[in-house]
């Protein structure tokens, strides 16, 4: 045996070979929300400055429905044998249709898949796409699994943020629904150059899910469920987000030996315009190298990165061989992740 064989020491490369996405329904304009705003001034709130449009999933449209539609273009491009041959299925769902069960199993059934590894992962939040890339790569590098499908679904905008009390809030117009998927293969065609995933326990627990009443969400009664931060935490979360996304991005840049200014395309999560501005400023990149879909889709949570990647890729703005850096933070800052990819899915 040749102990100098690099294959024995360095893990095999894993590539992000394709992305696809799905946006439900017709775009919903901001006027839908402004008619319910409590005051004129609220509508102008800068932190939650609304996008021009967003998509809302239908009341009966399940996460599996959305994922199936997002995956369809991959089947068109890679053939009907793609899905039966997938080894790993990872899903992240913002609002599980069944709160005690993830979508992976049912999605596999619907798509006629037979994966060896199925995980429904919840803690990656808005950085879930990077989190799932990291998890899929780890599984592929330590097992004989060769292919992975990762699915990030944001589906709480329509059902949660249009409730009669919630839609009056300044933050209600910001979220939008959508689903983004990634196809990963154990080869060197579009390699993941590096990934950094960090959990920050000190910031865990600062995001609340409340019903606006004494009721627990599983109990019957009055009150409308919503994700929120206490008002005093908004500035803290904002300052953390300002710091975390560049921090993990810089770490990846350092390890792959690329200056942040030389990154060809930066794609982040997209909670609001201020974060987008601050993050490309922090990485010393012009705004045009930091595309987003905020104005058309709002805050897509975990789906933001793959939806924007797919949008840019379809528009021909991602060049094969270019370095694409993804970076995002989750919740109130308890998780952040960044990944750099040598792009290879240009069309």
């Amino acid at each position, binding site marked *: 045996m040749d102990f100098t064989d690099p294959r024995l020491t360095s893990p095999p490369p894993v590539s992000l070979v394709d992305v696809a996405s799905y946006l439900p329904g017709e775009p919903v304009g901001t006027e839908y929300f402004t008619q319910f705003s409590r005051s004129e001034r609220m509508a102008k709130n800068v932190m939650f400055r609304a996008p021009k449009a967003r998509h809302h999933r239908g009341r009966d449209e399940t996460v599996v429905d959305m994922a199936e539609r997002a995956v369809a273009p991959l089947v068109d491009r890679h053939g009907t044998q793609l899905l039966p041959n997938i080894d790993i299925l990872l899903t992240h769902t913002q609002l599980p249709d069944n709160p005690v069960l993830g979508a992976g199993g049912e999605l596999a059934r619907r798509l006629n898949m037979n994966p060896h590894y199925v995980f429904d992962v919840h803690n990656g939040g808005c950085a879930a796409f990077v989190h799932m890339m990291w998890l899929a790569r780890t599984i592929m590098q330590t097992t004989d699994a060769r292919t992975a499908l990762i699915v990030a679904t944001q589906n709480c905008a329509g059902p949660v943020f249009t409730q009669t009390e919630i839609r009056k809030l300044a933050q209600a117009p910001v979220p939008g629904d959508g689903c983004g998927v990634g196809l990963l293969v154990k080869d060197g065609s579009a390699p993941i150059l590096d990934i950094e995933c960090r959990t920050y326990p000190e910031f865990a627990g600062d995001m609340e899910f409340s019903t606006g009443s004494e009721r627990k969400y599983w109990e019957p009664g009055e009150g409308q469920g919503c994700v929120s931060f206490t008002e005093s935490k908004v500035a803290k979360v904002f300052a953390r987000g300002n*710091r975390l996304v560049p921090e993990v991005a810089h770490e990846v840049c350092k390890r792959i030996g690329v200056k942040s200014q030389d990154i060809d395309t930066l794609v982040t999560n997209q909670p609001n315009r201020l974060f987008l501005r601050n993050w490309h400023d922090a990485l010393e990149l012009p705004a045009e190298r930091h595309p987003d879909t905020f104005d058309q889709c709002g805050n897509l949570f975990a789906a933001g990165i793959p939806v924007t990647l797919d949008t840019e890729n379809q528009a021909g703005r991602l060049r094969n061989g270019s370095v694409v850096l993804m970076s995002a933070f989750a919740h109130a800052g308890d998780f952040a992740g960044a990944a750099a990819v040598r792009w290879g899915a240009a069309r």
Partner: protein
Amino acid sequence: MTTSALPALSDIPEGVVPGLLRIENSDREATTPVILEMLRSVYPHDQIFGDYCPVQGYIDCPPRDLYEYLADTRSLEEWTYSLRGFTETEEPGLWESYDRLGPNTKIYTRTVANPDAMTVDYHCAWDQGEHLWMVYLMRVVDAQVVFDKPGSVVLWTNCHHPFYDRNPYQDTAPEGRKVWVGDFWEMFSAGHQLELDNLKAIAEYRASNGLPITPDWMK
């Protein structure tokens, strides 16, 4: 209706002072977004250091001892990067030394210190001691008060006097010198930080080794 106990701004008609944001005309809901807009991940160097050069730091050393050390002009011989050869001039309190940033460059310093406030202001100038326009404002704060731990916090601010851009005393400059102190303004933030780090290293070494912060040679 007023909620104030004092007749605040009663000398000025309402609404005539531009840009005034007070809780009476801009409540928290309206002001929070304004403040969030001002928060950035990074700030342009010029925005922070444009007309002011602030540096500050924590030094693990008793504040009174540190103040007394800094209040002696000769301490600059130790912790500054380039001021050397301090001798007192005939004018009491005015010290002459060399700033080795420039060849043959004399610098004059007068230290104005206030033991109650623990402020130490170094009034300096290159080449002449008549008009001391380079002013380094320092303050030593008891860290017990601000950080709830023993030690000192040093605040140091330098203001961008117009003479940094234009030397009005060219006739006192040594012949052939090509540099002017103001040429280094953009480096002041880093340069002052380096000097503050020197001060920290020296004072913490003396404090942790039981040496007086002000050495015997200065007494």
